[in-house]
């Protein structure tokens, strides 16, 4: 199949490690401090969800790992380590080889990601030939195998179809097939089911989960849906305004959140709430990330447990029993 790169060790622990990552965007309105010292880890075969509302920086993080940040983005600090290799220091050639082969990404709108004037089978073959050490002669057959793997009925005939002939759900499957064609070590799924019907969402997420566990592939799921993350992911990292506020195994995070924002997010999610009055909103708004006088903890302005010490750097990273950490000076469950 596709031989992993010699300098990437898939068995390294952890597979993906982001440490102290800060990213800024240069815009006409000023410098937007999109990410502030983001840190989390992902082990081989694990599924981690990056959960956050709009503006939390979760997509920026995913794009940073993939190396597809826009030109206006500037890494202000930190490291991204994948299989022992530092992605931020790697040259363009190395990144080119890693992208598609070791790390794959699927996006929200599959139709936008597929070439509308090329048959889907050919698009999969293209990737196989480019990244997968597959000859041009073998590629079409492998492409059909991939289509079968993602449960597209009648894959031989469908390989000749164009994206416009396929339904949205099928296009998403084709995108998954393209992503998994080279058996990557890490799959990044950037809001793959937002805007999709609930039954299609279940099918797609079940498919990703099944393929991931079969191949031992790690998954980084970017989503705003806490419910979705809770079903499919081993661990959840909650983001707010460019900071990771808490990261913990799923069941622990949901039953015993330590960060006030996590607790509020859980309380706002319809999920299993008994009535509308049980839901709580989150007061305040996102801070303007263009300011240079942002408090150290960007949630502090909206937080009920806010203390004077919260606005002063650095924001601590307190390890939690059971794995994970919380970035709070006064986490829930601690003494007042």
């Amino acid at each position: 199949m596709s031989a992993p790169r010699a300098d990437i060790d898939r068995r390294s622990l952890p597979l993906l490690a982001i440490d102290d990552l800060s990213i800024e965007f240069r815009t006409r309105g000023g410098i937007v401090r999109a990410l502030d010292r983001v840190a989390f880890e992902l082990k081989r075969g694990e599924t981690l969800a990056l959960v956050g509302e709009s503006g939390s920086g979760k997509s920026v993080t995913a794009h940073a790992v993939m190396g597809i940040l826009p030109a206006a983005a500037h890494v202000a600090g930190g490291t991204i380590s994948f299989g022992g290799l530092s992605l931020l220091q790697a040259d363009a050639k190395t990144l080119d080889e890693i992208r598609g082969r070791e790390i794959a990404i699927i996006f929200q709108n599959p139709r936008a990601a597929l070439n509308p004037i090329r048959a889907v089978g050919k698009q999969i073959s293209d990737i196989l030939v480019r990244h997968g050490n597959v000859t041009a002669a073998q590629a079409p057959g492998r492409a059909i195998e991939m289509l079968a793997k993602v449960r597209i009925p009648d894959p031989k005939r469908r390989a000749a179809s164009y994206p416009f002939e396929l339904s949205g759900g099928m296009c998403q499957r084709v995108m998954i097939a393209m992503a998994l064609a080279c058996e990557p070590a890490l799959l990044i799924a950037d809001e793959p089911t937002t805007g999709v019907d609930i039954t299609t969402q279940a099918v797609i997420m079940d498919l990703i989960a099944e393929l991931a566990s079969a191949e031992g592939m790690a998954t980084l799921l970017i989503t705003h849906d806490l419910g979705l993350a809770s079903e499919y992911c081993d661990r959840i990292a909650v983001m707010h305004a460019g900071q990771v506020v808490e990261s913990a195994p799923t069941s622990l995070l949901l039953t015993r959140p330590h960060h006030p924002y996590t607790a509020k997010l859980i309380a706002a999610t319809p999920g299993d709430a008994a009535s509308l009055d049980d839901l709580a909103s989150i007061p305040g708004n996102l801070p303007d990330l263009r300011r240079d006088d942002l408090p150290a903890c960007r949630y502090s302005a909206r937080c009920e447990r806010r203390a004077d010490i919260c606005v002063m750097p650095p924001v601590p990273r307190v390890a939690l029993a059971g794995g994970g950490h919380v970035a709070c000076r006064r986490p829930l469950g601690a003494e007042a």
Partner: protein
Amino acid sequence: MTPEPPLVGEPLLAVEGLRKLYPIAAKRTWRDRKLRSYLHAVDGVDFMIGAGETVGLVGESGCGKSTLVRLVTRLIDPSAGTIRFAGGDIGAVPAKEFGRAAQRAQIQMVFQDAADSLNPRFTAFRAIAEPLRRLRGLNGAALRARVEEVAGLTGLPLELLGRFPHQLSGGQQARVGIARAIAVEPRLLILDEPTSALDVSVQVVILQLLQDLKTRLGLSYLFVSHDLNVVRLLCDRILVMYLGHIVESGPADRVFASPSHPYTQALLSAVPSPGNSARQRRIDLPGEPRSPIDPDPSICPLYGRCGRATDECRTSMPALREIAPSRIAACHYAAMEATPPLAAVTV
């Protein structure tokens, strides 16, 4: 949620036998050239909404709920069937003339994409004032007073009234859309996925606002959503739609607790929830929905995807029937101790 709707007297909205067919230009042989193909967007729908009720309408893309919503709000005309509102037959008034009808102000809608539903060149004030000007003939000071009153009801700060939609946040746009809809004191408000584009924290606020407005202003809601959790919290009764048909209806919490139609069961099993047990409970509907073009009227719409596919499913269209008190489903096998189909049951 209230267990049974007290349908005392005439319901606020009563829809019977509603159909909407769209002609399709199909390639036909010369012999069949006069025959037309039709897409059955809404294929025989019956339901009622009582005064003060919140009825949820769930279904996936292609089930016909957008068409149904546009029929009920009289933006398009039905191909067949009746729509009665507060005793009057509004289905008989053509959509083109409904703008001048007395009931126009009584049925209003909050749109899914608030930003798209606001004219980019109108300020929030003007957007809210529009129905008041057209339908209530308000002007000047009276207009301003009413707009400000309604803005206050929806929690929209008055200083935002001079802003354009692109200068407002998602939540504020949603409030403007709601304010505009309630400005003319409607009795029935259709809410077409009003929070699907909003962050979850904003969604809570808007949902609670809608709940509050309903009790304060005595509104009835038809709440269309694909988010089953939200529907469960807000709605008294729910209607489940599939391929232009209503396949199940009943009190929201009971339908959620024990869905009877196979489609409802599949739908509910797809809702993500913590832990792996959800995946085990998953009911897959293999394949794609049947074609809505010239569907065979004797085949159940779910045939071919349903786990149970018998000859009866293929030869007789299941009618909506009461399978338990106030529980209605369109399936031959919905309940083991099935009561024989009642004639002309409306939901």
